[in-house]
């Protein structure tokens, strides 16, 4: 349902304008009609820039320390921002310094510790000290004899050595000369330690102040936002009579109207009320039952309905839930969703609780669909062994299976069949296909399973071919349901006579499926009901070809009817096939679950630690499968809803979000 809204137009003298805005903001329910947008060049440019800075700071703070809690008493936001930013710059500078020191250390490392004074003293005496490096293989032993060469260190195949010679001499060494490092390695290291301890200090300071800063920065965001919103709201008034008269428009839900009227009685503002008109941008407030409102976030992912339209949320909700279950298709996974939901709910913030509840509903659907398709944590419940026992014979006798058939079946007493398929084939051979098909349900129910718990309901589980038909059937139901909603939607927006051709299509599809489908199944005999059948088809044809658009003349209507037929015949067929995904996704998730069971079961044969591998593979495998399958099970029903269902229900969308002008808390 969409809540009813009304438009108020406020006329006020410019001197009373700000008091009107204040009282509207205190009331907090009026959605002000947006006529112009603020940009960074306007008067609020500084606020917008500040907002950006606050947001960036919060992001950096959360990146540094992900789980800090806010302190209760925030400080001055701009001071906090400055302090935080200054500390960040200091840390950054210190980090840069360590990088430079690292580079220097790399250069100084081969030369060890030396006293620069000695080098200077030697220089004063006319001796030069020079440093060289070369690959060890290139080092010529003669150099040591010819000159004063001192090897200082060796590293990764390179030699580092010093040469001392008199000023003016120029020994010819085929090695690379390097500059004497400014500082020795130990002084560099002590410097680096100092800088690093400074970084640690700064970081712990940030950690200490983070709760306060986070609160303060958030306060800054809130304050700036509310300032911006105020200015933005103030900008939306049209000005008349030399800027003396301000005219402001706003939407308000009818349920909140009384408060506004009380407010207006007290103020010096003249106002008038108008009903929403087509073509206006009207804020849409969805109002649904507790169950359907859980699905509103999903509906909003796509688009809000237009104000004049039907809100489809409550109508797709049960289908969506069922489809999710169909795609996940595992009763065990469904149980996990339900149970995990209860645990998670205790820990999360209040605003996430509806999402968890929704996930639990999905779990219920998965549990149901998993039981229907006979899958529990990848275990196939349908093929859980079939044995005819004494109890089976008694059951068949009571259920009215002919005595001779039962006595034939009694011959197989104690024989164990692994799968439903092999059991059905085996029994068919004994009692004949006709007889088996006639009593199939009773025979299947009577056979004992390896898991006794399943005996009561295993015969209800659908094998994959029936799941395939079920997927198509659900699709057909949703498409026809969508068309019926389209009739309501069009009647609501334009008038009933515009919906006649859609009614024609519904009649046609239902007639064809009931009569043709019924005929194939042998329930309906078309020959006996030929008159009814033909007249229904004629009525549908007339509605489709002659009543599709009351505004146009008859020939154009014929053409439109043809065009519609092309669209609907190709469209509906494609839409229906699209529901195959439900079946295939369900199958693939249960197959993958089964594969993980198989792999882990094989690991059990590993001696001593097999059970450990078994548990690990089982846990990881199923978690992975749940994650992938849940993503698919959410996205695919979403597509079926927004594409197939919305299209057939004639959804147009385009409502805007209801954002009342109020003080943010």
């Amino acid at each position, binding site marked *: 349902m969409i809540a009813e809204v009304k438009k108020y137009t406020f006329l006020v003298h410019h001197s009373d304008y700000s008091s009107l805005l204040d009282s509207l903001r205190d009331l907090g329910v009026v959605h002000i009609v947006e006529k112009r947008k603020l940009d960074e060049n306007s008067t609020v440019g500084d606020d917008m820039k500040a907002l950006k800075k606050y947001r960036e700071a919060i992001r950096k703070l959360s990146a540094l320390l992900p789980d800090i809690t806010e302190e209760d008493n925030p400080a001055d936001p701009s001071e906090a921002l400055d302090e935080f930013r200054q500390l960040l710059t200091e840390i950054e500078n210190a980090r840069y310094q360590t990088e430079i020191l690292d580079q220097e250390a790399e250069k100084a490392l081969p030369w060890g510790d030396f006293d620069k004074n000695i080098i200077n003293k030697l220089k004063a005496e006319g001796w030069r000290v020079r440093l060289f490096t070369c690959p060890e293989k290139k080092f010529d032993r003669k150099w040591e004899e010819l000159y004063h060469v001192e090897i200082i260190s060796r590293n990764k195949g390179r030699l580092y050595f010093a040469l001392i010679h008199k000023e003016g001499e120029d020994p010819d060494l085929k090695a690379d000369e390097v500059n004497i490092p400014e500082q020795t390695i130990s002084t560099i290291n002590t410097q680096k330690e100092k800088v690093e301890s400074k970084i640690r200090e700064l970081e712990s300071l940030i950690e200490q102040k983070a709760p306060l800063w986070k609160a303060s920065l958030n306060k800054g965001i809130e304050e700036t936002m509310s300032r911006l919103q105020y200015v933005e709201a103030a900008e939306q008034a049209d000005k008349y009579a030399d800027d003396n008269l301000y005219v402001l428009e706003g939407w308000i839900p009818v349920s909140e109207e009384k408060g506004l009227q009380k407010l207006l009685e007290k103020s010096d503002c003249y106002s008038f009320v108008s009903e929403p008109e087509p073509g206006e941008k009207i804020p849409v407030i969805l109002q649904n039952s507790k169950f359907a409102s859980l699905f509103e976030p999903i509906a909003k992912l796509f688009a809000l309905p237009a104000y004049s339209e039907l809100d489809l949320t409550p109508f797709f909700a049960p289908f969506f839930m069922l489809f999710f279950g169909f795609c996940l298709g595992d009763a065990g996974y469904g149980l996990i969703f339900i149970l995990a939901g209860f645990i998670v709910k205790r820990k999360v913030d209040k605003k996430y609780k509806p999402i968890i509840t929704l996930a639990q509903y999905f779990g219920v659907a998965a549990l149901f669909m998993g039981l229907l398709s006979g899958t529990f944590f990848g275990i196939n419940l349908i093929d859980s062994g079939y044995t005819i026992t004494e109890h089976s014979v008694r059951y068949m006798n009571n259920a009215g299976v002919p005595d001779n058939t039962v006595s034939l079946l009694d011959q197989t007493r104690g024989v164990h069949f692994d799968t439903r398929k092999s059991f059905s084939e085996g029994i068919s051979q004994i009692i004949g296909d006709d007889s088996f098909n006639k009593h199939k349900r009773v025979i299947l129910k009577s056979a004992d399973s390896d898991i006794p718990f399943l005996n009561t309901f295993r015969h209800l589980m659908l094998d994959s071919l029936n799941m395939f038909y079920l997927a198509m059937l659900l699709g057909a139901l949703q498409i026809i349901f969508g068309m019926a909603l389209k009739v309501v939607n069009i009647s609501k927006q334009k008038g009933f006579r515009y919906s006649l051709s859609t009614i024609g299509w519904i009649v046609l599809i239902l007639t064809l499926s009931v009569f043709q489908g019924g005929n194939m199944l042998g329930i309906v005999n078309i020959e006996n009901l030929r008159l009814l059948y033909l007249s229904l088809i004629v009525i549908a044809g007339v509605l489709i070809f002659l009543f599709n658009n009351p505004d146009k003349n008859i020939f154009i209507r014929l053409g439109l009817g043809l065009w519609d037929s092309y669209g609907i015949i190709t469209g509906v067929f494609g839409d229906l096939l699209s529901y195959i995904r439900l079946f*295939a*996704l369900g199958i693939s998730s249960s197959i993958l679950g089964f*594969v993980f069971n198989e792999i882990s079961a094989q690991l059990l044969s590993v001696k001593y630690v097999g059970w450990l591998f078994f548990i690990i593979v089982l846990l990881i495998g199923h978690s992975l499968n749940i994650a992938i399958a849940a*993503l698919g099970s959410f996205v*695919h029903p979403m597509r079926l809803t927004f*594409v197939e269902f919305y299209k057939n229900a004639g959804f147009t969308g385009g409502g805007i979000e209801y954002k009342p002008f109020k003080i943010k808390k």
Partner: protein
Amino acid sequence: METANVLTNSVPLIFAYVGLALMLLLSGIGSAMGVSMGGNATLGAMKKNPDVFGNYMLLSALPGTQGLYGFAGFFVINSSGVVSDQITMLQGVAILAAGLALGIVALISALQQGRVCANGIAAMGQGNNVFANTMILAVFPELYAIIAFAATFIINSTI
């Protein structure tokens, strides 16, 4: 004569295994390439808008399912017991056809889905909030891989 017999007997078996190999190979390649497209786009988008990594990741993961359909198809056929010494020509050719169909469809569907996802991620990096739209659009190409898988499943249950 003897060799000829052995050859004719093994031809359907070769067909079947080539079919299974194609099924796994093409769908796996498609998914691997599809998810990398998403991953590459994510790395680019992280530079401008790192706040929604979770959403990028979900979109990047979408083309991963085609590989799973390929594997599920392989598993269905492999565990049905058809691929054995007694395999008939009909079964061999049917498995080859299923492998070709599922493999090629999954390959192209994963590649195209990867492209849609990558574009969506790039757009989100620019600040456009198109997460839900991308999700819905990205599922469009996946349908055909799903249908090919359903067809494989049906082929398996009829041979």
